[in-house]
């Protein structure tokens, strides 16, 4: 049982990493990773939604008839996303200023609905929570890594700390093409490491 729980968490972080292996949730991955902090904040907000929605959907799975499962899942997910949005706006306004537009978009993030449909609707509450945690951490790690690389190469800083002069930064990494370049190389690297 312990092994199963650990496997469920590790699965989301490594083998089925939502960004590098499942290639889900590309919109926030590409758009919010302009800095390490932005990537991490987005990842953690998504993790919270994933855990809560997985738990609630797993609890309600027998009360939701199959034909209306998608609208029911979306209502549950949207509720948690709105809660996260209000909480971030109230208690971490700095993060809200940076991510404002992208927080409501967590509702349509494929990872959240994907895990609700593929895992939470078929498994126990405990395992669903662990799956949400694993997937969320995997997503957060991926976004933080992409954000850190883009910030470092583009502006010469990491988590806002200046490591070298911004003048030598390659601006392209902060812009949209940089997101695709970093994502592509990281995906190739992770796949290579996983196949070893």
């Amino acid at each position, binding site marked *: 049982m312990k092994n199963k729980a650990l496997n469920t968490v590790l699965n989301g972080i490594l083998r089925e990493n939502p960004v590098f292996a499942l290639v889900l949730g590309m919109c926030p991955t590409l758009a919010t990773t*302009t*800095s390490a902090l932005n990537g991490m904040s987005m990842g953690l907000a998504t993790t919270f939604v994933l855990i809560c929605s997985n738990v609630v959907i797993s609890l*309600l*799975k*027998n*009360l*939701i*008839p*199959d*034909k*209306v499962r998608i*609208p*029911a899942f979306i*209502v*549950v997910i*949207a*509720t948690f996303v*709105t*809660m996260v949005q*209000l*909480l971030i*706006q*109230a*208690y971490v*306004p700095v993060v809200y*200023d940076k991510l404002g*537009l992208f927080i409501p978009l967590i509702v349509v993030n494929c990872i959240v609905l994907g895990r609700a449909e593929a895992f939470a609707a078929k498994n126990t509450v405990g395992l669903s929570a662990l799956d949400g945690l694993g997937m969320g951490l995997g997503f957060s790690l991926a976004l933080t890594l992409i954000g850190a690389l883009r910030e470092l190469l*583009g*502006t010469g800083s990491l988590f806002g700390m200046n490591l070298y002069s911004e003048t030598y*930064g390659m*601006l392209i990494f*902060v*812009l949209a093409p940089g997101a695709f370049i970093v994502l592509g190389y990281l995906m190739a690297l992770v796949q290579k490491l996983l196949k070893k």
Partner: protein
Amino acid sequence: MAKLQSSFKNMLLSLTLIALVAAAALAGVYTMTAGPIANASAKKQQEAIKQVLPEVEGMTFAKADTVYVVEKSDTVSTIILHKAYVGEEWIGTAVEASTEGNMNMPFGGTFKLMVGFDQVGNVVNYVVLEQAETPGLGALMESWFCNKEKDGQNILGKNPATTNFTVSKDGGDVDAITASTITSRAFLEVVVRAYNAVAQQPMLIEKVEVEPAEAFVCPNGNDPLECAGRGCAEQYCLKQKGDQQ
């Protein structure tokens, strides 16, 4: 418990119940966060106001004035004025204005500034309240126009009435952000619109000395006062006295 069948009744009940619980949960969180959200927003605004006005002890603020300005772009913009006083003396105004109503639209959606002016209309400082410009390019406006080491791009201490607040590419006196002329044009236009909103206020109008216009002399002896309100006064006057109007 067995899974509910997809009958009409079950589907209706299930969705209604989920929607009701969701609504109640959201109402709870909203009530809990409404206060802190309002506080955070007010705190941010207060800090921005203090940052853009001269550092003076004992500064007090009048109730914010919201003015609606019909802009050249034929849209109505909302500009908020925070007038600061020391005792009875008015020492400056912090103006909250956005690109709404601009003729030069920004590159990445609307942005909002807080610009501070002293009694004579010199820019004291500015803070970018909201922006979605490209990092490393347009987003540099946060530090570009207040760089005191580069006079060409610095707008602090300058007055839109005496300095041409358009980018040098358009014949103005301010250097645009490298590779972000669109953002720079939009930024400078917001500053000028903010200035104009202050200039329309009675307090500043008292300060500005208006030169009397030269009296119009009718070249053929007609009474200039008669010309008033008849469109082009000069054309009217050029007609010979006694001609039919």
